[in-house]
C-alpha cells in the first residue's frame, strides 16, 4: 500500500513540477504577447494549463471582452448617427458604406494591376520587334505609367515616414547625447528647442519647398522633390521628442557609472557606446516612439501640400473629387492611418521591450 501511495505522490509531484514549468513558460510568453497586444491569450493558456477558471475568465473579460464590446458599441452608435448628418456630398457614410469603399479601392487596385500587365505585355512586344529589326540600342524597359493605387500610396507613405524618421533620429540622438553630457550645451540649445518645437508642419512646408527647390537641382527618380520635401518636414517636426528624451536620459544616468568610466580612463567613444547609450536606452526609445507617432501625423499633412503620392495626397484628391463616394473613401483613409499608426507604435514598443529586456538578462 505504501508503494502505491509512494507512486501516487511521485506522480503528483511530477505533475506539480510540470505545472510550475508550464506557468513559468506562460509567464514569459505573456511579456511577448503583451507587446503584440495579444495579452488576452494568456488567460486562455492558463485555463488550458489547469488554473481555476473563474479568475481567468475575469481576466479574459477585461483583456478581450471589454475592447471588443467597446468597438461594437462604437460601430453601433456610428451606424445610427451617421445618416442623420447630411452634408452637400451626401450623408456621412456608416460602417457598411466605408466597407464598400474598402472593397472598391481593392478592386481598383486589381484593375490597375491588370492594366499594368497589359502595358508590360505591349512593352515586351515592342522591344522584341526592335530587337528583331536590329535596333537593340533603342530597347528600353520602363516602369508602368499609370496612377498609383491605394496600396501603392500606403507604401509610399510608409517609406516617406521611415526616411524622415531616420533623418530625425540621426540628428536628434547625437545632439541629445551632447546636450545630456554637457550642462552648458544644454543651456545653450534649450531655448532653440522650446521655440522650434511647437511649429506646425504646415508652417515649415513653404520654406522647405523653396529651399529644396533651390538646393536640390536634379530630379532623380529615387528621390523625387515631393518625397524629399515631405521627409524633411517630417524630420523637422518629429525630432524634438527624441532630442529631449535623449538629453534627459543621458543627463540622468547614474553618476557612479560615469566615475567608473573616468577611473578606467575610457576614451570618449567607448564611454558613450558602453556606458551612456545602454543606460539611456529606455528613455531614448520612449523618445523614438513618440517621434514616430508625431512623424506619422505630420506626414499626412505634409503630403497633402507637397504632393507626395501617399495617403495625404489620397485624402486631398478625394476631397477635390467631390463625388458621392468621396466621404466614405476619406473615412477609409482615416481608419487606415489610425491602424498603421497603431501598428507602428506596437513595433516600436516591441523593439523597446527587446532592447531594455536584453539589458537585465
Amino acid at each position, binding site marked *: 500500500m505504501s508503494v502505491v501511495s509512494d507512486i501516487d505522490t511521485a506522480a503528483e509531484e511530477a505533475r506539480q513540477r510540470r505545472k510550475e514549468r508550464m506557468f513559468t513558460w506562460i509567464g514569459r510568453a505573456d511579456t511577448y504577447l503583451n507587446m503584440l497586444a495579444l495579452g488576452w491569450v494568456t488567460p486562455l493558456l492558463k485555463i488550458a494549463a489547469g488554473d481555476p477558471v473563474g479568475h481567468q475568465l475575469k481576466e479574459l473579460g477585461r483583456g478581450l471582452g471589454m475592447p471588443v464590446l467597446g468597438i461594437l458599441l462604437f460601430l453601433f452608435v456610428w451606424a445610427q448617427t451617421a445618416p442623420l448628418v447630411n452634408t*452637400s*456630398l451626401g450623408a456621412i457614410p456608416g460602417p457598411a458604406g466605408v466597407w464598400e469603399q474598402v472593397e472598391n479601392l481593392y478592386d*481598383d487596385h486589381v484593375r490597375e494591376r*491588370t492594366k499594368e*500587365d*497589359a502595358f*508590360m*505585355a*505591349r512593352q*515586351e*512586344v*515592342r522591344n522584341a520587334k526592335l530587337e528583331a529589326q536590329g535596333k537593340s540600342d533603342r530597347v*528600353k524597359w*520602363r516602369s508602368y*505609367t*499609370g*496612377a498609383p493605387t491605394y496600396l501603392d500610396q500606403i507604401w509610399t507613405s510608409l517609406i516617406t515616414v521611415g526616411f524622415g524618421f531616420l533623418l530625425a533620429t540621426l540628428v536628434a540622438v547625437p545632439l541629445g547625447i551632447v546636450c545630456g553630457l554637457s550642462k552648458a550645451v544644454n543651456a545653450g540649445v534649450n531655448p532653440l528647442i522650446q521655440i522650434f518645437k511647437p511649429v506646425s508642419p504646415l508652417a515649415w512646408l513653404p520654406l522647405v519647398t523653396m529651399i529644396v*527647390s533651390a538646393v536640390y537641382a536634379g*530630379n532623380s527618380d529615387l528621390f*523625387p*522633390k*515631393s518625397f524629399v520635401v515631405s521627409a524633411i518636414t517630417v524630420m523637422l517636426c518629429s525630432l524634438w521628442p527624441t532630442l529631449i528624451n535623449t538629453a534627459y536620459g543621458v543627463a540622468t544616468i547614474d553618476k557612479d557609472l560615469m566615475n567608473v568610466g573616468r577611473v578606467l580612463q575610457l576614451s570618449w567613444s567607448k564611454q558613450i557606446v558602453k556606458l551612456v547609450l545602454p543606460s539611456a536606452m529606455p528613455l531614448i526609445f520612449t523618445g523614438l516612439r513618440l517621434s514616430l507617432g508625431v512623424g506619422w501625423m505630420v506626414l499626412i499633412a505634409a503630403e*497633402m*501640400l507637397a*504632393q507626395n*503620392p501617399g495617403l495625404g495626397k489620397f485624402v*486631398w*484628391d*478625394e*476631397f*477635390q*473629387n*467631390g*463625388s*458621392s463616394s*468621396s466621404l466614405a*473613401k476619406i473615412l477609409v483613409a482615416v481608419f487606415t492611418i489610425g491602424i498603421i499608426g497603431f501598428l507602428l507604435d506596437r513595433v516600436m514598443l516591441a523593439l523597446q521591450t527587446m532592447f531594455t529586456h536584453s539589458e537585465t538578462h
Partner: protein
Amino acid sequence: MECGTVRNFIWTRLTRSALVLTATVTMGVSITAHAEMLDVEKDELKFGFIKLTDMAPLAIAYEKGYFEDEGLFVTLEPQANWKVLLDRVITGELDGAHMLAGQPLAATIGFGTEAHIITPFSMDLNGNGITVSNDVWAEMKKNIPLQADGKPVHPIKADYLKPVVDRFRNDGKPFKMGMVFPVSTHNYELRYWLAAGGLHPGYYSGENITGQIQADVLLSVTPPPQMPATLEAGTIHGYCVGEPWNQQAVFKGIGVPVITDYEIWKDNPEKVFGITAGFADKYPNTALAVTKALIRAAMWLDENNNANRQEAVDILSRSEYVGADREVIANSMTGTFEYEKGDKRDVPDFNVFFRYFATYPYYSDAIWYLSQMRRWGQITDGKSDAWYKDVAAKVYRPDIYLAAAKLLVEEGLADKADFPWDTDGFKPPQTEFIDAITFDGRAPNSYLEQFPIGLKGTEKVEGSSVVDG
C-alpha cells in the same frame, strides 16, 4: 499558402502570355498604319492637371494609347492648385501641364513667377460658368424677365446682379465672389460680365495685387474643387469656375448657375497645354509628338458630332482623373446645362475640343487675354499694339502646331480641311460678346478705349486712384 503563390504565379504567367498575344495582334495591325515614328528625345514624361472636365484631351490621349503610339510614356498627375502646377512646370518636376490660357502669358511677362512658358496647343473652347448662392439668386430672380414658359430669359446680364450688390453694400456687407487664379480665364470672364453690368470688379496696381482697388465686388482666389464648399459656407456669394463645379452646385442644391462663358463670349479660348520654352528647344521632336497625340485626342472627343462624349464621361469620372460623379460630369460634356434645378437647356457647344479650329493657338486669343490683363491693371503701364503682338508670338507657337498637324495628315490620321493652314494667327474681328463690343486682335489699344470700366491708354493705378501715365 505556398500552393496559392504557385497558383498566382502560373495565373500571372498565363495572363501575361495571353496579353502579349493580344498585344502582338493589335499592334501588328496598328503599326502598319503609321509612317516612321518621330525620334523623340525624352520619352518618359509627367504631365500635371487640375480636376476639371477640360483636362479630357490629356486623359483620352493616355487611355486611347495616342501617347504610346508616338513613343511617349506619360504619367498624368493631379495637382493641388494652379500655383503648385505652374511652379512645378517651371522647376521641371512636371514636363508640361493643362494650363489656364493666361498662365503662359503672365509667366512670360513676369506677373507672378517669371518663366518663359509657351503653348503649341489650345485645349478647348468655352466650358465655364458663373454660379451664385441660392439667396442671391432668389433676389436676382425678382428682376429678371421671364419667357413664355415661365423660365428666365437668357443670357442673364450682371445688370440684374447690380441691385443685389447695392443692397449688400448698403447693409455694410461686402459682396464677394471667387475665381480660380489671378490670371485665369475665369477671372477675366467674371470681370467682363460684371463690368458689362455696371459693377466694378476692382483694379490691380504695382504694389497691390489683390485686385480689389475701387471694387464694387470683391474677387478672390479659391481652387476649383473647393468652390462649392466655400459657397456653402457663405465665405463667397458666387464664383466663376469650370465644370463640373457649376453643375455640382445645382446637384447638391447649394447654388444656381446664372450664365455660361459661351454666352459671355461665344467660343472663347479656355485652357492651353503649356510647356517651358526650354523644353521645346531641347526636345523639339518630343514637343511635336505630344502635340500630335493631343490633336488626335481632341479629334476623338468631337468626332461624329460628339458621339464619343459618354465614353469620355466614363473615363473622366474615375477617381484618378476628375473623380466627380458621372451624372454631374455628363450634363455639360454631352451638350446640356442645368441652370436652376429643373431648368435644363441645350448648350451643344458648352465644351468644344476640336471644332471651329479650337486647338489652333491663335495670336488674337493671346492678345485678348493680354488686353484684359491691361484693362484691370495687372499690366501696370500702357503698351503699344506691337508689344501685344510680340508677346503673343513669343508664347503661342502655331509653328509647332502646324508641323504636328502636317505629320498627322501625311499619316492619314487627320483631314487636311480640319486645320487653318493659311491663317496669320488673327481671327476676324469678333462681335459675339455679351456687351456687343467688337474685338479686333490687331488693335488692342483701341479695343480698350471702348469700355466704360477699365484702364485705357496710358492710365495707371496709383494708391487707390487712377491717374494718367
